[in-house]
């Protein structure tokens, strides 16, 4: 119970403590001459937040870059060796890197397509059915990927031939007299990776659906009506009138899912531990850092991830600027 008391103390301390900190700093600043007060006060307000960001994100990020040029316990510099080691090993390139690339190609696209399909199709159901369907598909957003993986591990479970199958997929095969398949070990054509991707898609379609549904409902009726009057088919109306108007949302969803995919870790850790050719860079990072204790490799992997994310970051900033200009 000590933990609970500690947690409660932390909550009270965190809120009151930070409030007190701001209050005291504010009082101190108010004693300054008027001109200085106006100048200094903003720093008091954003200072603690910037310190936290600096200490827990920016400074460590710089240290990570430095570590990526150092040896496994960060005691001496070894130049680009970590990078050449990693990029020179087929294990990393055609394993973790290639699989991550596959995830990046498959998952965001399918999540957008499924989300859009649900958004458009559910729109045509009766309101009660629409609400039920959407709530159901949205629900996996709440649970952890560890939880989602547990759910699907049970679906993929495989027992030796001849014994009763408790996994849904193999039970279905069994009904047709087909021998059970050890799904998670099925690395031909990356089949097992695809089965792991199903978990993330299952978890993320709800997010995609909610955003896209709001966008589709926001398409002005008169633009669609105009298409109908011109005699366009439903398909044509959807592709030429609706899609262009929701494109910005499509991109937002795509990028959000893409970022999640690039650093995916939980699903692989729980389902296969990166074995059977399902390794990804998020998993490899953990293996190097925690299991192998190799700071150099782990840092180099993160730096590669960071470089891959820079374009997304630039897009995000540009997008934000455009939004601000419209405000």
């Amino acid at each position, binding site marked *: 119970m000590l933990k609970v008391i500690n*947690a409660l103390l932390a909550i009270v301390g965190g809120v009151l403590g930070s409030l007190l900190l701001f209050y005291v700093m504010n009082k101190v600043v108010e004693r300054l001459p008027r001109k200085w007060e106006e100048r200094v006060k903003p720093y008091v307000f954003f200072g603690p937040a910037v310190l936290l960001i600096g200490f827990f994100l920016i400074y460590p990020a710089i240290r990570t870059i430095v570590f990526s040029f150092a040896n496994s316990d960060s005691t001496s510099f070894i130049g680009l060796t970590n990078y050449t080691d990693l990029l020179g090993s087929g294990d990393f390139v055609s394993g973790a890197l290639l699989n991550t690339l596959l995830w990046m190609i498959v998952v965001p696209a399918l999540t957008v397509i499924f989300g859009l399909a649900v958004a458009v199709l559910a729109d045509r159901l009766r309101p009660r059915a629409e609400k039920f369907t959407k709530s159901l598909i949205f629900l996996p957003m709440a649970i952890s990927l560890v939880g989602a993986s547990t759910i699907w591990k049970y679906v993929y479970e495989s027992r030796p031939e001849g014994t009763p199958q408790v996994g849904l997929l193999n039970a279905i095969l069994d009904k047709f007299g087909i021998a059970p398949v050890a799904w998670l070990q099925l690395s031909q054509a990356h089949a097992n990776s695809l089965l792991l991707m199903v978990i993330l898609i299952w978890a993320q379609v709800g997010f995609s659906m909610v955003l896209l*549904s709001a966008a589709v409902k926001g398409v002005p009726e008169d633009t669609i009506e105009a298409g109908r009057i011109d005699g366009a088919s439903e398909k044509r109306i959807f592709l030429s009138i609706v899609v262009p108007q929701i494109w910005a949302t499509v991109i937002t969803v795509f*990028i959000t899912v893409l970022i999640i995919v690039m650093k995916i870790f939980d699903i692989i850790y729980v389902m296969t531990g990166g074995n059977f050719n399902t390794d990804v860079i998020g998993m490899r990072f953990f293996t190097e850092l925690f299991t192998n204790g190799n700071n150099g490799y782990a840092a180099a992997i993160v730096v590669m991830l960071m470089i891959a994310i820079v374009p997304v970051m630039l897009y995000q900033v540009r997008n934000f600027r455009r939004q601000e200009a419209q405000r």
Partner: protein
Amino acid sequence: MTVSLDSPTPSTPSRAARRKPPQQGAMQSRAGWFVKITMGILCLVWLIPTVGLLITSFRQPEAANTSGWWTAIASPLKATQWTLQNYHDVLFNGQTPMGVSFVNSLAVALPATIIPIMIAAFAAYSFTFMQFKGRDALFIVVVGLLVVPYQVALVPLLQFYGSIGLNGTFPAVWLAHAGFGMPLAIYILRNYMATLPLSVVESAKIDGASHFVTFWRLIVPMSVPALASFAIFQFLWVWNDLLVALLFLGQGDNMVVTVNLASLLGQQGQGWQLLTAGAFVSMAIPLLVFVSLQRYFIRGMTSGAVKG
């Protein structure tokens, strides 16, 4: 699940939405068989795996591991096949029972949610209502940091915590999550505050109220929806996180539900009746929070927030 998903109120409405309010359905036509069947199949795909998990968590160990969960539905009234023992076992037995992890998760997630809120709110206020040099540039940095994955901080942080003996303790995780969540918190709160009428702040200023008073008496009460949005995001994020908990808390007495469930899954010979019960214990709180506060969650989501 009574909250409607149909009309989220984005704090930054898209151009199309601003031009015209959302309508009854832009593509209006009745659902044909194709639509009904497709949606039916989709619902089943989303529902069945979870139903299987739920049913198994109430089955006798012997039955759960020698027959599929669907066989239990064939005779649902046979009372002897149902049991609550699995939940009892997973909550109270074992080296670190799920019950202990449940308390740990609360002890991690609540402070990690509450601590950053106040700090972010002050920062968001300064970005919205105060003038200072480099304000816009600083905010652009915050926007850029939104998509940066927290992995960038983990290598040095693990080393740093190790050197000051903070590894394996709750404060290590609170502080890390407070830092990682800060860009999103500032972003959500600032975007919301920017929609508040500036006249309120200005008239308060004319009345002689200091920034501190304006913030505390006016802006914080008006920003409750945005504060709630972020709180839910952060709470779910921290509760459901595996990597940070695994690195900084590990698998000892302080392990949280996600780490506990992952380690149950990794152990040979754990029966499915225990795994499924453990999974539901780990999901109970997030599901409850999510279902009851979905409105705020959707508002945060539609504000265009992306977390790296």
